[in-house]
């Protein structure tokens, strides 16, 4: 299957996503610049982490108006798979492709380090090969990662199973100490109602090799590849 990584001015985890797909997963991947208007024949679009447009004003707010975004939106609406990581998650919420918003970390500091995530729904393309309640060790690196969604909407996404990952401690419990940024209900990642667009603050693309501290991020990418294989080449779209 074919991966595309969108590059905005100020993206900087584009390289990490690219290398993971190319060197570890051995799948074809290409960069797509923000100032084009087609995503080509990609099967999965990754919106990578970084600081698009410096994250000035609000994280992801300016990138969301880039020239490439209508194509991403159209792709998403027609069922294409879109994964937003960190800044990419912020862009997707700003664009309204995912519910909620990401605000300043509760403690006001940038935070980099390993956290644990619990898989909350393993029936989406992004969590397909995981087991429900699997615990993944994945790094975070963000200053604006506190997930917020208004109360009615929160109920709705919880009921719909749109919460994909929650911050937990190493034993898998949802606790306040395990919440690195103050996210509501410890939510680390969500998907849209139909499950084809997902976003998370942690960086699975940084957790693809033992020497980097964890390989647990691979499950997300392998899920997509598996899901896609099952769906059959050329199906969908």
């Amino acid at each position: 299957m074919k991966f595309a990584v969108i590059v905005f001015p100020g993206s900087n985890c584009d390289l990490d996503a690219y290398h993971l797909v190319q060197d570890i997963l051995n799948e074809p991947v290409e960069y797509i610049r923000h100032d084009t208007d087609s995503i080509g024949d990609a099967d999965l679009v990754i919106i990578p982490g970084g600081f698009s447009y410096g994250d000035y004003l609000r994280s992801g707010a300016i990138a969301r108006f880039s020239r490439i975004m209508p194509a991403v939106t159209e792709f998403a609406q027609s069922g294409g798979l879109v994964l937003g990581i960190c800044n990419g998650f912020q862009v997707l919420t700003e664009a309204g492709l995912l519910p909620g918003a990401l605000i300043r970390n509760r403690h006001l500091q940038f935070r980099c380090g390993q956290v644990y995530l619990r898989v909350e729904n393993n029936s989406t393309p992004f969590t397909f090969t995981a087991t429900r309640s699997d615990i993944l060790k994945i790094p975070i690196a963000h200053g604006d990662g506190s997930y917020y969604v208004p109360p009615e909407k929160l109920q709705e996404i919880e009921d719909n199973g749109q919460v994909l990952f929650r911050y937990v401690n190493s034993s898998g419990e949802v606790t306040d100490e395990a919440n690195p940024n103050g996210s509501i209900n410890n939510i680390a990642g969500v998907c849209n109602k139909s499950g084809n667009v997902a976003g998370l603050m942690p960086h699975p693309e940084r957790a693809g090799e033992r020497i980097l501290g964890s390989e647990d991020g691979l499950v997300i990418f392998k899920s997509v590849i598996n899901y896609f294989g099952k769906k059959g080449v050329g199906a969908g779209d």
Partner: protein
Amino acid sequence: MKWLAKVEVTLKQAVLDPQGVAVESSLTTMGYENVKRVRVGKYLELVLEAADRDKASAQVEEMSRRLLSNPVIEDFSYSIQEAGV
């Protein structure tokens, strides 16, 4: 004509404002114990050309809604005046 728009973007009441909380507690530590509540938001000044105040106003409203604020978490308000040079 040139207009100066002042836009205030504030977090919605229901959204936790960690900066506001931090400022409030610093103020308390500094001895300003009579301060009861602090909210921190954004303040933007824009200079724009528009034929009249209504046009300027409509545009500022639109820009605030689309870019300057995020309606999921923020409210905005603005005022417009003629820009002295």
